[in-house]
């Protein structure tokens, strides 16, 4: 059986940053297992710019951002196995993987970092009436067709869902000569970044219809059109508002789900809201020695935050490997009044370090306050001009604030209007 100090599952930006950080902390034997033919993850197909502004201070495309980490990995003695799919992780941290050259292999790992990313919610998760012709795909699949395979999936496009991938693809298809008729969003707000609404839709006069959905698809072999309708506050289609739109392509950009089959297999408890593992401030799951970071932990819209989070996980894994993990007392974090979730879900208050809490809100707020309380005492109250579900927020708790807490305390983050 192969033996590594650290096995990283997934070679996207999360896996690479975690491996590099662990290497910097002095971990000797590290391997990254990636099922695709090369490192880079989803960034390889994200050819638009907008990556790295926080981390590198410049605006890079996805492949350029990934490229910098790939080069760094190549300059270390971190082992990389591509075309290698991880099938299982056992209770004793034995990783089972398979590839064409080595076949089935087992690797005993002291620590494991889960960095499998996320996948798009497929059409099956939606309930649209009508036929099932070709021409219906997720926006990410369309992105791969256009940007990697160099093939245009259609000419007249309707996009359901205003997630960032959908917005980016609206611009991409328009630039390549397709006509994007409308982007329909079920909710009364877009889940995409404001900047993408401006530069992907408004720049090209593509209409964004909020509180609107696709109720039926038409066409036998190939999609011929869709029926859209407005929805009420309960998100139910309003009779009489139906409208037929001819199109040959329907792209779905209705959300991403962390890819946690492996995590479930090893019995790592997941958070009901994030759909990712429950973790502490070093992104260690409730299974000792198994860490998680990037989109497998929570869906990120900024790769810069993925890198930041993954370095924390890499450091945590190194501490674990060197037996330097601090014993402690754990407080739980809890979102109230509009705060949908918080990562990490638990914090070692004896860690002796400041801790950043990342969270998302459930609706748009203007001039609201973010407050953090513990045992009825207000620790923090910060004014924010704007809070939106599409944008991840954070607050930092100081070492002193944490040291004053005890095992079982609740750190409560909420929004006050």
């Amino acid at each position, binding site marked *: 059986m192969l033996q590594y100090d650290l096995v990283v599952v997934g070679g996207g930006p999360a896996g690479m940053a975690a491996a590099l950080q662990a290497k910097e902390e002095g971990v000797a034997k590290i391997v990254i297992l990636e099922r695709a033919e090369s490192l880079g993850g989803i960034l390889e197909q994200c050819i638009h710019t907008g990556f790295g502004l926080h981390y590198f201070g410049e605006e890079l495309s996805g*492949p350029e951002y990934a490229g910098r980490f790939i080069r760094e990995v190549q300059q270390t003695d971190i082992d990389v196995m591509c075309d290698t799919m991880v099938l299982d992780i056992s209770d004793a941290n034995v990783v089972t993987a398979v590839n064409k050259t080595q076949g089935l292999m087992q690797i005993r790992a002291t620590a494991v970092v889960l960095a499998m990313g996320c996948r798009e919610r497929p059409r099956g998760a939606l309930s649209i009436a009508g036929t099932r012709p070709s021409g219906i795909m997720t926006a990410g699949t369309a992105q791969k067709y256009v940007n990697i395979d160099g093939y245009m999936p259609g000419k007249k496009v309707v996009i359901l869902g205003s997630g960032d991938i959908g917005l980016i693809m609206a611009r991409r298809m328009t630039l390549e000569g397709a006509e994007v008729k409308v982007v329909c969003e079920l909710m009364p707000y877009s889940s995409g970044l404001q900047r993408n609404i401006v530069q992907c839709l408004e720049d090209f006069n593509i209409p964004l219809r909020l509180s609107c959905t696709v109720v039926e698809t038409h066409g036998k072999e190939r999609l011929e059109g869709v029926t859209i309708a407005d929805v009420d506050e309960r998100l139910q289609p309003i009779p009489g508002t139906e409208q037929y739109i001819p199109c040959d392509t329907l792209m779905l950009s209705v959300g991403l789900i962390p890819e946690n089959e492996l995590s479930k297999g090893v019995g790592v408890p997941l958070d009901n809201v994030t759909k990712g593992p429950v973790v502490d401030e070093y992104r260690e799951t409730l299974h000792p020695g198994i860490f998680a970071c990037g989109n497998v932990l929570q869906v990120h819209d900024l790769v810069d935050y993925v890198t930041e989070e993954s370095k924390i996980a890499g450091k945590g894994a190194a501490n674990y490997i060197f037996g330097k993990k601090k014993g402690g007392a754990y407080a739980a974090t809890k979102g109230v009044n509009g705060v949908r979730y918080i990562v990490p879900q638990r914090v070692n208050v004896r860690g002796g370090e400041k801790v950043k809490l990342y969270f998302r809100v459930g609706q748009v707020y203007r001039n609201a306050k973010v407050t953090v309380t513990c045992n009825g005492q207000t620790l923090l109250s910060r004014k924010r001009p704007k809070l939106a579900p599409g944008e991840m927020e954070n607050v930092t708790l100081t070492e002193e604030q944490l040291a004053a807490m005890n095992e079982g305390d609740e750190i409560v983050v909420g929004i006050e209007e």
Partner: protein
Amino acid sequence: MKRNLVCIACPIGCPIEVELNDAGEVVGVTGNTCPRGEAYARTEVTHPVRSLTTSVKVEGGVHPVVPVKTAAPIPKEKMFDCMQVINAVTLQAPVAIGDVVVKDICGLGVDVVATNND
């Protein structure tokens, strides 16, 4: 006159208000959280620019296309002109990150460069 913009210079997306005088000159910018926002707002109300990212055909490489970008932002209204020029190009592998694919596209003084290897 006032114009309300959303800053697209970074993913935070600050709401910005630009105050213009009768001659169309910028007399005030508010709402930005950093200097990049002010620079964006000033350009946006006078001569808006965008970075263009797309792909170019490659022969003999691993993939049939390689991604490219304009090395600097170009005037917004020139995007489709540039697309026409780029779509007429076919590269020969190997292509490396940073290779110039089209020099001085449409006479704009900006090169189109590869953003991945192939």
